[in-house]
């Protein structure tokens, strides 16, 4: 169990053609073990977000192969990937995208309602738990677009956790948070990886944050150092 591979990327190349042809990812190869808490660092523009979109299965326009939990995802259809994401990947975007027409609680519940593994009551219960974990349960009934940036980011994290995904990916998930909340999020991630064996991949600019993770991957101009 300990050394099971959660995620494996081999020979990933990716090009952008607009405005001019340029290689954004260059022969990326690495494995992530199950339960590993990984940080991805690098200068702005080095390709961290682009790599994360590939890992999240949302971006399929690359060459090379991606394997999660032993399943090769490269070449799967969009619908298969959507189902896979829903059940196995929690994603926190760089700019904390919530659905503005929904309440905080509904935002957190939505991926689980889509998955339909649990009853609505159980899902509501869990969503509350997750919001409490992140210290924003008092915002549950509020419309998502009424929250501050930091609050929205924490809601997005609560949402990423709701389906207890095998892998949680965050693109600067603590970018908008103060040091106290950053510490809270770090502790949650660490707890998830240690106690529940969930794999965490977090892009970060915060050296302190990165230093405390299990492993640091560094990107420079699209290549892994």
């Amino acid at each position, binding site marked *: 169990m300990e050394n099971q591979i959660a995620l494996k990327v081999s020979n990933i190349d990716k090009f952008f053609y607009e405005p001019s042809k340029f290689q954004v990812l260059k022969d990326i190869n690495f494995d992530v073990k199950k339960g590993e808490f990984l940080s991805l660092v690098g200068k702005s523009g080095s390709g961290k*977000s682009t790599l994360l*979109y590939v890992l*999240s299965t*949302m*971006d399929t326009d690359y060459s090379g192969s991606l394997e999660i939990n032993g399943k090769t995802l490269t070449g799967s259809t*969009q*619908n298969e990937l*959507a*189902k*896979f*994401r*829903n*059940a196995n*990947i929690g*994603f926190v*975007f760089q*700019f904390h*995208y*919530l*659905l*503005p*027409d*929904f309440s905080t609680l*509904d935002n957190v519940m*939505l*991926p689980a*309602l*889509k*998955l*339909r593994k649990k009853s609505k009551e159980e899902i509501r219960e869990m969503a509350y738990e997750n919001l409490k974990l992140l210290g924003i349960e008092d915002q549950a009934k509020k419309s998502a677009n009424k929250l501050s940036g930091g609050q929205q980011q924490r809601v997005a994290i609560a*949402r990423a956790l709701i389906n207890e995904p095998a892998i949680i990916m965050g693109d600067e998930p603590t970018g908008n948070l103060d040091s106290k909340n950053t510490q809270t999020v770090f502790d949650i991630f660490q707890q998830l990886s240690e106690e529940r064996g969930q794999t965490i991949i977090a892009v970060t600019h915060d050296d302190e944050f990165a230093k405390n993770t299990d492993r640091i991957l560094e990107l420079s101009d699209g290549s892994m150092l």
Partner: protein
Amino acid sequence: MIRQTNFQVAFAHLSSRVKQSLVAMLSVTFGISMYIFMNGFMTGVNDVQNELAFSALAHVRIYRDLPKDRSNLLASKYDEEATLINIRNPKTIQYTTGIRNANEVIDAIDHLPEITDIATQVNLNVFFRNGSAKINGLTAGVNANDEEALFGISESVIEGSWFDLNHRSDGIIMGVGLAKKLSLNLNDNVQVSTADGVTRNFEIIGILETTMAGVDDMKAFIQINAARQLISKNRSYATDIQVNVADFEAASAVAAKMRSLTDLKVESWIESNGQLDAGNELRNIIALAVSFTILLVAGFGIYNIMNMTVNEKIKEIAILKAMGFEGSDIVQIFLVQSIIIGIIGGIIGMLFGAAVSVVINQVPFQVASLETLPMSYRAKDYVAAFGFGLITTFVAGYLPAKKASKVDPVTIIRG
């Protein structure tokens, strides 16, 4: 199956864009109400036209057709090829006119279930004379009750009473224009003479006004036996047997059945009055063309607004897809929105269409026998309007929904 989560998202979208949703709803309401109004109006016009026409025209008429070729009247009697026929002077040969035994014909067709009413008539060309005034016209010998059953003629009698004809063998009921031309009033006497020179006196017991010049200025009604007497025919003689059927649109089919039961000429109103049927058909086509155009416009309204919604919600679509919503979920989310718009807009449209119809139905329009603009209220128009409205919303909503399902989440989320 539409997944509940998709419903939830669809409702959230709708309630976050109340104004646009209302505009889309209004375009459906407008399309459906105009569909109902247009079709109700055209059907109303058709009904009035038919009612008017069928007050003088039976659904099926049975009569003896004159032989087309009178040079060889015996041809049908001797059809073996070996028989040579030579008629020296064909003009002198008497051939049958009219129906000699109408009762026999009626007995033969009577059992057809489609038939609702039968009336026998003896129609004659006659001269009406009052002193020196002499006018060529028509006399119909009728049975007053049968005539009423087919044509509802008593409603047109403006002086005297139609049913007096039942017991007045010397009575005549005359068109108002004809009476005026002859300077005749109720209870006056009039002389009727046939082509063969038989003349008889009748007393005017009723005056008739149908608004149809062909009747009002030319025609008079007497008892059928009085007419038979005028031309010295037996008590079962008739020139015409008029038949009404339950569904006048099926008249041709019933006429075809009757043809196998009698040698006489059987003619449905569609064959004898093609222009009436053509008029009905044309009005139906106009109503359909106009209402489909309006529905199309309504469809474009929904299409536009749903397209705007998709563009406005493109970030949300990207997030939903990132969370694992499939293309089919996204299609459902937007299709549900347009169908809800279609259903609500459609229900309001049916109510509004009924209201518009009622209002237009009150507009005064005093031409011919009309008082106000005609209108028909048929459940099937409402069902069709709602059905077509839903189909329109479905199609108009599907295209933007399909577009939404193709959104690439990465492009949107990367910004």
